[in-house]
């Protein structure tokens, strides 16, 4: 019996009136955990009862501690009839089960009722005493930390990244049990909420066990989802990345990050950098830079010794990928043989992370995805969820083989999703094929060839773009050129990935949100016929989504997509595809060609005129976009790079498949292969419509940027003002004569209008960027489309933004003469023409690339060093004798944790409610996360039988979402936190029946509860940590002295 749970019920407030006669309430509380229930006394006639109960003690297994939620029910005592329930609070006590997180849960929780919503609040204190468990065969996994964040959490260091963990549990859905016919909606909803809470507890425990088996201590990028399969049951599944994390305990270790609202700077200056020389490259010269670039290979020697048998087989020279190509065959064979290899050992070398420690990601192959259409059947035995397991295993196998085909041994930014309509279910998985640095993986041994590649990869900032696959034996036709950054390796013309932009990537200008939207009508059908129809449509959907993405990317003048997420939603009579990604211009990749329009019937004069008109419009748009996103890539000389490898040009970078219909869509050829220009043929209405839709996408109003990744490339001066929001729209389609075109237009308008509304609503935050824009589409009924958007708006400092613009402008001025729209279409000729008149000598260019190589743009480095100076200045003033006695006390405690904790509670004038920030990002701009308090994973159901009275569907859902936010905030505050990071609304299932005046909604949210400290506060703290803490800092920043 390894744990004791203690609960105290303190008080209630704002309770609803339960007794009409007295306008008061006689409230008491039931506290339930597992099968044990305690009750408080009845507090008579009050809406603000003060129970101040004794400590209720539950003695329980830690297995139960993990699975069960603490259930607190507030009731109104009634002498003559049954007691009326006021509402409930479920508290997940998991955060109390590991030492580093919260020690106590204490605070005001909203009392929630599935029919009435929030009805007052209750003050509760929860503690857990854990006894050490020495049982080797234990079923619990207490102590394993869970993070929703898809990168290594900010105050931790990854010792080993073990890899993929997954689990799923199934059960019958209480909503569909026979008993549901006789119980009240409230009882049914509560049964469901409780079951899901139990199942996710169980799931988390099981995943934790797997992590312990792998000798890890944490799960990062934990993503848990529910599949409401209706009649056939309820599936709760989760994936994550097992890691061994080390807490960064010295304040110096976290101090560096605090100057940087931008993530780019967070890791680079100090964390990554064991040798202090790095920074001594004050005015960066190519020479010094080289010394830097070799330093990461320290680990190389160590590892190569362990795999020396393979060395003979690996390519000796890593300079040209041509040589790599020659040995491509053996290389692949080798990979297969290497059962010893850390990754091959694993069943699925997948990582749910989207951002990585520096040096982890070596090469990126491209997006891999797999979909499969399944018919749901009743889950007969909940204890053996084999069918569902088998389905997923099948899909993962496919992803793995796709990755292999791209010459990659791993998949990063991996995610899984489902879309269910009646008995048909589409399972989807996608990720980015990649080659990883084995240094971070368990057993750290990978073949020498990989290390060879690592060495090739030395120029930071472009390495990940270099193709990992064998050039002569490419998995798909692609257009390769030498890297525009290092000029040694081959790169593709465009790159699609599901991950965040690597922090060291060199990007030109700013990024933008790019979406492809698509609808396809489908005949209503039953069972297998339906599944077949869907799987027949899927390849075409994927293909068109991909074409749209490519077109829009070109139109923006960009060459890479990050954070790509393609969602295919199935409805009764249609399929919807929505792809979102952040487009950027990677300096390492070639300048994208324009879009050329070609007509099939060139005889008709007016038709040609029309085409040339369109062409002009497109060219104008491209030019405008380049200006808008400040895309002025540095001049490159084509001679150095050499002519592109003659290869049938194809734009597809996606490798797809459907398990029921395995036709490879990649075979379809659309391009004309005329230089880089991307040709659109408008020979039918479809294509015409495509072109139109291209041009109807309105750019965000001035002062606004948007992206679906963590941070916006090109903006790094965030202020601390953030606003997280959720917006939901449901649109009814007119059912008359629906065509694909009309549908597409409707859907497109819906998304565009939604974005426009967001821009309008947030106009007071200008200049501002919408980050992590996450669209979810569902088709709740025949003619209904529901779009849910969650994102965070972050303001940035305009003045500093202007400065960066200026440098861009300067750059662009130097090449202004060549910057015209023709260039966009024929970059090769014009570039080579312009070489003689090139304004600056190659040396200068060298310098520029060198500075970008180090991963820190000059401007940022300046900021960085000036910041160090600031800190040092402060430290010095203290050394000069202003140290007070309190300072010495501070010094004695190594962390001053308590100090932070106090600080973290923001002073809120005459309000008892502390502010809790919520953000889908993994960081809070202008602040430093000092502690992770545990995962928040909540599931709520809300139902109403008085829809009109509650303000219709909008009023109902608006109130419910506000309540969900409130409950998340209350839980975080009770844990002692002041923010939720990596917040995500995973599900928002809304059903209505206006005729019956009813509606129901299910919402599932998750995130990481954290404590953060404002940087301004932190600076004060840092001055209070005198010499001892500044010492390492000074060592790291020798440059500045």
């Amino acid at each position: 019996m390894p744990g004791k749970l203690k609960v105290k019920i303190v008080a209630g407030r704002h309770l609803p009136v339960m007794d009409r006669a007295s306008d008061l309430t006689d409230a008491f509380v039931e506290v339930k955990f597992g099968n044990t229930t305690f009750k408080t006394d009845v507090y008579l006639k009050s809406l603000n009862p003060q129970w101040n109960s004794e400590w209720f003690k539950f003695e329980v297994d830690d297995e139960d501690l993990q699975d069960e939620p603490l259930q607190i029910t507030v009731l109104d005592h009634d002498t003559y009839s049954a007691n009326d329930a006021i509402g409930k609070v479920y508290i997940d006590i998991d955060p109390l089960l590991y030492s580093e997180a919260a020690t106590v849960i204490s605070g005001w929780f909203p009392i929630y009722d599935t029919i009435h919503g929030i009805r007052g609040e209750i003050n509760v204190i929860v503690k857990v005493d854990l006894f050490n468990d020495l049982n080797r065969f234990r079923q619990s996994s207490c102590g394993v930390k869970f993070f929703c964040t898809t990168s290594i959490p900010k105050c931790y260091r990854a010792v080993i990244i073990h890899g993929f963990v997954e689990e799923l549990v199934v059960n019958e859905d209480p909503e569909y049990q026979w008993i549901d016919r006789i119980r009240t909606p409230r009882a049914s909803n509560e049964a469901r909420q409780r079951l899901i809470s139990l199942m996710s507890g169980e799931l988390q425990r099981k995943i934790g066990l797997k992590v312990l088996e792998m000798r890890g201590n944490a799960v990062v990028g934990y993503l848990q989802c529910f599949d409401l399969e209706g009649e056939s049951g309820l599936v709760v599944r989760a994936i994550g990345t097992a890691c061994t994390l080390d807490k960064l305990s010295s304040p110096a270790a976290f101090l560096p990050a605090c100057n940087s609202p931008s993530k780019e700077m967070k890791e680079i200056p100090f964390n990554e950098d064991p040798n202090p020389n790095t920074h001594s490259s004050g005015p960066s010269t190519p020479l010094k830079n080289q010394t830097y670039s070799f330093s990461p290979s320290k680990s190389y020697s160590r590892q190569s010794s362990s795999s020396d048998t393979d060395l003979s087989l690996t390519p000796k020279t890593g300079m040209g990928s041509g040589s790599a190509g020659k040995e491509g065959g053996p290389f692949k064979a080798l990979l297969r043989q290497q059962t010893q290899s850390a990754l091959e050992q694993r069943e699925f070398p997948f990582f749910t992370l989207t951002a990585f420690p520096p040096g982890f990601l070596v090469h990126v192959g491209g997006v891999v995805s797999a979909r499969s259409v399944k018919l749901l059947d009743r889950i007969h035995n909940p204890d053996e969820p084999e069918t569902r397991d088998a389905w997923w295993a099948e899909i993962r196998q496919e992803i793995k083989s796709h990755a292999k085909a791209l010459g990659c041994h791993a998949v990063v930014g991996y995610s899984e999703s489902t879309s269910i309509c009646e008995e048909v279910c589409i399972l989807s998985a996608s990720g980015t094929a990649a080659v990883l640095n084995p240094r971070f993986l368990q057993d750290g041994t990978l073949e020498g060839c990989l290390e060879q590649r690592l060495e090739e990869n030395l120029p930071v900032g472009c390495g990940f773009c270099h193709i990992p696959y064998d050039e002569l034996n490419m998995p798909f036709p692609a257009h390769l050129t030498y890297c525009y950054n290092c000029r040694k390796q081959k790169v593709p013309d465009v790159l699609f990935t599901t991950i965040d932009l690597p922090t060291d990537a060199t990007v030109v200008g700013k990024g933008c949100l790019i979406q492809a939207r698509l609808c396809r009508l489908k005949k209503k059908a039953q069972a297998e016929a339906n599944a077949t129809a869907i799987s027949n449509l899927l390849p075409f959907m994927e293909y068109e989504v991909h074409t749209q993405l490519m077109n829009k990317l070109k139109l923006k003048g960009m060459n890479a997509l990050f954070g790509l997420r393609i969602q295919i939603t199935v409805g009764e009579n249609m399929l919807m595809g929505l792809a979102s990604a952040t487009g950027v211009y990677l300096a390492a990749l070639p300048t994208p060609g324009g879009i050329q329009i070609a007509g099939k019937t060139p005889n008709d004069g007016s038709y040609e005129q029309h085409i040339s008109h369109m062409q002009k419009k497109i060219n104008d748009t491209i030019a405008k976009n380049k200006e808008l996103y400040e895309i002025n890539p540095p001049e490159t000389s084509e001679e150095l790079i050499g002519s592109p490898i003659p290869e049938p040009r194809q734009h597809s970078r996606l490798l797809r498949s459907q398990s029921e219909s395995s036709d490879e869509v990649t075979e379809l050829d659309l391009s004309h292969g005329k230089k880089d220009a991307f040709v659109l043929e408008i020979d039918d209405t479809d294509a015409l419509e495509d072109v139109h839709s291209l041009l109807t996408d309105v750019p965000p109003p001035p002062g606004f940027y948007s992206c679906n990744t963590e941070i916006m490339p090109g903006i790094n001066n965030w202020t601390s003002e953030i606003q997280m929001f959720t917006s939901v729209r449901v649109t009814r389609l007119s059912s008359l004569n629906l065509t694909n075109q009309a549908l597409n237009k409707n859907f497109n308008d819906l998304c565009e209008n939604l974005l426009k509304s967001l821009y309008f609503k947030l106009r007071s935050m200008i200049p501002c960027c919408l980050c992590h824009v996450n669209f979810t589409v569902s088709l709740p009924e025949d003619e209904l489309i529901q779009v849910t958007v969650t994102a965070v708006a972050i303001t940035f400092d305009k003045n500093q933004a202007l400065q960066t613009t200026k440098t861009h402008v300067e750059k662009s001025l130097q090449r202004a003469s060549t910057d015209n729209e023709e260039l966009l279409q024929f970059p090769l000729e014009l570039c080579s023409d312009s070489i003689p008149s090139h304004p600056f000598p190659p040396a200068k260019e060298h310098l520029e690339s060198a500075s970008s190589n180090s991963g820190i743009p000059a401007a940022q480095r300046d900021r960085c060093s000036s910041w160090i100076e600031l800190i040092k200045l402060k430290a010095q003033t203290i050394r000069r004798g202003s140290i007070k006695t309190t300072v010495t006390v501070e010094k004695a405690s190594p962390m001053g944790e308590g100090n932070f904790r106090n600080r973290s509670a923001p002073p809120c004038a005459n309000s008892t409610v502390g502010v809790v920030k919520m953000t889908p990002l993994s960081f809070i701009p202008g602040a430093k996360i000092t502690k992770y308090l545990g995962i928040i994973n909540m599931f709520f159901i809300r139902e109403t039988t008085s829809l009109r009275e509650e303000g219709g569907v909008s009023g109902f859902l608006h109130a419910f979402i506000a309540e969900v936010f409130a409950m998340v905030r209350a839980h975080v505050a009770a844990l002692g936190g002041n923010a939720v990071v990596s917040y995500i609304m995973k599900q928002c299932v809304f059903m209505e029946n206006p005729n019956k005046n009813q509606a129901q909604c299910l919402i599932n949210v998750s995130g990481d509860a954290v404590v953060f400290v404002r940087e301004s506060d932190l600076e004060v703290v840092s001055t209070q940590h005198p010499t001892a803490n500044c010492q390492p800092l000074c060592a790291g920043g020798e440059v500045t002295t």
Partner: protein
Amino acid sequence: MTSELDIFVGNTTLIDEDVYRLWLDGYSVSDAVALRVRSGILEQTGATAAVLQSDTMDHYRTFHMLERLLHAPPKLLHQLIFQIPPSRQALLIERYYAFDEAFVREVLGKKLSKGTKKDLDDISTKTGITLKSCRRQFDNFKRVFKVVEEMRGSLVDNIQQHFLLSDRLSRDYAAIVFFANNRFETGKKKLQYLSFGDFAFCAELMIQNWTLGAVGEAPTDPDSQVDDMDVDLDKEFLQDLKELKVLVADKDLLDLHKSLVCTTLRGKLTVFSEMEANFKNLSRGLVNVAAKLTHNKDVRDLFVDLVEKFVEPCRSDHWPLADVRLFLNQYSASVHSLDGFRHQALWDRYMGTLRGCLLRLYHD
């Protein structure tokens, strides 16, 4: 294609001040949209009318949800559903409880009952303020009244504590509550020239000097029924005011009083002769007003009487305000020199307040 559902929920509740004002002013969503379009917001932001419509609806919904909390402002501070920065909370409350001058003049001194509420239609037509806004303002008056009516202690403090209003607004509400409780007549035609500010000024003086709370000591008897110390006039004091009657009833006293005033003011007033001629009338008016205050009916007519008996006669003789001030000062001060008059303290308590009121009421 129609939007069935369209919502936006921020972690920090977005409050648009302009839309809040339109909502408070009682405009429907479509009217509000039209007004916003007219303000030129579409041109400024490049938004479409549909966007504006959706935005307005959203804000209206938020305000509607907040309204319940605004009825008890401390709840707004402690609730967990809407995360609103304290400065915004204060703004929401202050604006919600703000009222229109035109409206308050219509209901000031009226019983805050259902009957009055039924008249809101007429008030709305008369003032041009939407019925919805009238209702909100009326309900605010009534709500504040109900909460503080029976409460002990300072009226202003009570209002401030229970409704978290600014000092200025709390004082205004104190006046409204005080007038509603004493049912002072303010609607007569001859009182139309007076602003709410004039009445509020008088109310404050009266609360400070004429109520039980003004005496400065709580009733010693714990079972005492006089709980509402600041809201009700001091009955005992009103009773005692009868004693002042001697000032006009006793001919010698009246003459002596007149001669004292005239001696001092001779040469100092531009309207000296008019004053001299009118002294007895004016004095009779002021003292009779005091003596009549024992009857509730006459209390209600206090302002009518003051205007009729003092303001109008002076105004018809074109007294400048400075002269009125000089006269009133001398008029009250001279009583101290009347040896036969024993109620000096009572006189000061009465006249001190009345002088302040009269000076404020004396304008065109």
